[in-house]
C-alpha cells in the first residue's frame, strides 16, 4: 500500500521524467561515443595498414619481388601485428602469414575490406577475429595483401561502450533510488501537512504542522498553515465564547423578567397588584434585556472580527471635543467640575463610532460614580511611545487595585455599584473596542484620596500610533 502511493507522488513522477530524459540523452551520447571511437579505431588501423603496404611496395620497387618476400617473412615472424600475403599474378600464394586472400581479386585495382581470420587461441580453440586488410597488385603483377587483426581495437571500443552502458545503468539506478528517497522525504512532508488538513477537516482545530527548522518552503508552508490555524482557532473560540456568553448573559435578565412577570400575573390574578404598573415594569425590563443583548452582541462581533470595521484616520481631539460637548452639561447638572485637555493635530486610525461609544461608556461611568462636588478630567495626549491616549480621570471612589483586572470582565459589578443602573458590560465593551483597534485599556488610581473624596479612577484608552 505504501509503495504504490509513493509512485503516485509528484516528486516521484518528476524523478521518473528526469530519468527518462536522462536515459534518452545518455543513449544519444553513447551512440555518438560509439560511432566516434569505432570510426577512429578503423581509421587508425587503415592508416597503419597503408603505411605497412607503402613500405613493402617501396621495398618491391627498390629490390624486386624477392626482397619483398624476404621482408615479408621477417616481418611475419616478428611481433608486428600485421597479416601478410604475397601472391603470384594468378593468385597463388608465394609467402605470407595467411593461406589465402580474404579478398576477391579485383583485377589489380587496390581494394580494402573487413573480414575475419581464424586463429587458435592459447588453449588451441578455434577463434575468429575481426580484421581489415588491403590488397594491391604490384607493378610486376604480383598481388600483395596486408591486413591487421582489429579485435583488440574493437574489444577496446566494446569495453568503452560497456563502461558507458554500465555508468548509464548505475546513474539510472542511483537516480531512481535518489528519486525514491527524495520523493519519500517530500511526500512525508506533504503527508504530514495532509494529515494536519485532514485532522482540521475532521474538527481538530488544535492540529498543527511540524516546523523542522530547515527554513525551506515546507517550513514556510507549515508556518503559514499554523498561523492560519491559530487565527482560525482564535476566531472560532471567539465565536464559541460569544455564543456561550450571549446564552449566559441573556439567561439571567430573562429569568428575572420572567419571574417578575409571573409574580405580577399572580398578584393581578389575586386582585392585589396593579396590572399597569406590572406591564410598565416588564417593558422596562425588556428594554434592559435588549440593551444587554446589544452590548453583548457588539462585544462578541468585535472579538470575533478581531478588528474594528471601517477604520479611518482622524484627529482624536475632534472626537473628544464632540463627546466633551455632549457630556459637559450633564456633569455641570450633577455638580461636577468638567475639564478637557485635548492635544490637537494628532492622528489615530479607527472606527469613530465604536471609539465614540467606548469613550461615552467611560464618561457615563465617570458621571455615574463621581459624587457631586467632584471633578472629571478628559484628556487626549500623545505618549512618548507615539501611542495616542484618551484618558478620563474622576474623583469618585475608584476601583481597588485587586479589582482592576476584574472589572473589565463581563457582568462584573463591584459591591458599591450594584445599586446604580447598568449592565456590567460597559468596560468590557471599551476593552473589546480597544483590542479591536490594536490598543488597550488601562485602569489606575485617580488623583488620590482627599478627606472623604477619592482616590478616584483614571481610565486610559490607548491606541497605537496611526501607521
Amino acid at each position, binding site marked *: 500500500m505504501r509503495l504504490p502511493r509513493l509512485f503516485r507522488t509528484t516528486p516521484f513522477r518528476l524523478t521518473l521524467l528526469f530519468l527518462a530524459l536522462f536515459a534518452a540523452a545518455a543513449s544519444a551520447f553513447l551512440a555518438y561515443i560509439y560511432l566516434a571511437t569505432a570510426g577512429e579505431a578503423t581509421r587508425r588501423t587503415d592508416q597503419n595498414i597503408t603505411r605497412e603496404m607503402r613500405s613493402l611496395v617501396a621495398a618491391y620497387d627498390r629490390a624486386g619481388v624477392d626482397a619483398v618476400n624476404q621482408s615479408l617473412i621477417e616481418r611475419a615472424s616478428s611481433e608486428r601485428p600485421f597479416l601478410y600475403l604475397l601472391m603470384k599474378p594468378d593468385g597463388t600464394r608465394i609467402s605470407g602469414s595467411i593461406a589465402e586472400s580474404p579478398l576477391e581479386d579485383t583485377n589489380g585495382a587496390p581494394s580494402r575490406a573487413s573480414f575475419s581470420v581464424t586463429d587458435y587461441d592459447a588453449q588451441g580453440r578455434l577463434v575468429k577475429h575481426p580484421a581489415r586488410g588491403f590488397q594491391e597488385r604490384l607493378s610486376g603483377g604480383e598481388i600483395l595483401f596486408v591486413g591487421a587483426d582489429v579485435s583488440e581495437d574493437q574489444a577496446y571500443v566494446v569495453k568503452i561502450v560497456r563502461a558507458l552502458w554500465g555508468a548509464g545503468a548505475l546513474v539510472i539506478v542511483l537516480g531512481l533510488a535518489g528519486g525514491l528517497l527524495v520523493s519519500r522525504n517530500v511526500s512525508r512532508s506533504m503527508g504530514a501537512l495532509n494529515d494536519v488538513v485532514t485532522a482540521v477537516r475532521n474538527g481538530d482545530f488544535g492540529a498543527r504542522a511540524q516546523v523542522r527548522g530547515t527554513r525551506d518552503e515546507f517550513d514556510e508552508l507549515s508556518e503559514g498553515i499554523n498561523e492560519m490555524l491559530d487565527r482560525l482557532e482564535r476566531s472560532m473560540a471567539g465565536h464559541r465564547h460569544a455564543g456561550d456568553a450571549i446564552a449566559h448573559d441573556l439567561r439571567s435578565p430573562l429569568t428575572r423578567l420572567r419571574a417578575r412577570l409571573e409574580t405580577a400575573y399572580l398578584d393581578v390574578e389575586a386582585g392585589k397588584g396593579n396590572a399597569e404598573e406590572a406591564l410598565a415594569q416588564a417593558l422596562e425590563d425588556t*428594554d434592559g434585556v*435588549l*440593551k444587554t443583548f*446589544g452590548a453583548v*452582541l457588539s462585544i462578541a*462581533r468585535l472579538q470575533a472580527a478581531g478588528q474594528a*470595521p*471601517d477604520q479611518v484616520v482622524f484627529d482624536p481631539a475632534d472626537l473628544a471635543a*464632540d463627546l466633551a*460637548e*455632549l*457630556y459637559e*452639561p*450633564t456633569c455641570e*447638572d450633577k455638580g461636577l467640575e468638567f475639564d478637557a485637555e485635548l492635544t490637537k493635530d494628532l492622528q489615530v486610525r479607527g*472606527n469613530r*463610532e465604536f471609539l*465614540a*461609544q467606548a469613550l*461615552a*461608556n467611560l*464618561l*457615563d461611568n465617570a*458621571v*455615574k460614580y463621581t459624587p457631586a462636588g467632584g471633578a472629571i478630567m478628559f484628556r487626549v495626549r500623545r505618549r512618548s511611545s507615539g501611542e495616542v491616549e484618551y484618558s478620563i480621570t474622576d474623583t469618585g471612589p475608584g476601583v481597588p487595585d485587586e479589582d482592576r483586572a476584574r472589572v473589565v470582565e463581563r457582568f462584573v459589578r463591584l459591591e458599591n455599584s450594584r445599586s446604580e*443602573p*447598568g449592565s456590567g458590560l*460597559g468596560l468590557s465593551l471599551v476593552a473589546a473596542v480597544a483590542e479591536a483597534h490594536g490598543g488597550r485599556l488601562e485602569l489606575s488610581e485617580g488623583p488620590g484620596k482627599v478627606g472623604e473624596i477619592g482616590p478616584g479612577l483614571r481610565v486610559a484608552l490607548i491606541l497605537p500610533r496611526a501607521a
Partner: protein
Amino acid sequence: MRILIVEDDLEAAEVMDRGLTEAGHECVRAADGEDGLAAARGGEFDVMIVDRMMPRMDGITMIQTIRREGDQTPVLFLSALGEITDRVDGLKAGGDDYLVKPYAFAELIARVEALSRRRETGSVQTMLRVGELEMDLIGRAVHRQGKEIDLQPREFQLLEFMMRHAGQSVTRTMLLEKVWEYHFDPQTNVIDVHISRLRSKIDKGFDKPMLQTVRGAGYRLEP
C-alpha cells in the same frame, strides 16, 4: 398619511398597522418585497416602512428598484441587522432612515412622522418659524417674540431639528442620531440635559412653554 407597510412578519405588521391607524394614518400592507413593489407602483404613499430581510425580494432590492423608477417616497428601513455597515448599506440603497428591531412603537411612529415632514420641506429655506419662535438659518440667529436668544452651536442645531419637526414627537435616539450623529445609547441622560438647557433658553421668561416632554417618547416643540 398613507403608509405602506412591507413586512413579512405578519404579527409585527398587524401591530404596526393598528398603532399607525390609531394615530390617524391609513395603512396598506404587503407581505414581501414583490408584493411591496407592486403596491408601491400602484399607489401614492407618504411613507414606506420596509423590512430589510424578506422572502422573494428583500427590502434593499425593492427600494433600489423603486428609486430607479424615480419614486422618491421616503423610506424607513426596519432591520434586525444593527451594525453600522448594515445601516450604511440601507441608506445607500435609497432608505431615508433605519430602525433596528426590536424598537419601541413610539420610536417608530416618531420616525415615520419625521420622514413625512422631510418631503414637504424639500426646498431650501432660510427662515424657520414655529409659533413665536423664529430662526434665521443664514444669520444663525433665533428670536422669540422679537427677543434674541443666544444659543451655542449645538443648541442651535438641536433647535433647528426640533423646529423642522415642530408638532411631532422626537425621541432621544433620533436627536442623538440626527443632531450628534451617534448611533449608540448613552447610559446617562445626556440628551435630557441638553434639552433642558435649550428649554431654559427658549421658554424661560415666556408664558407658554414650547419645548415639551412627551412621556414615554421624547420631546415635542409646540407652536
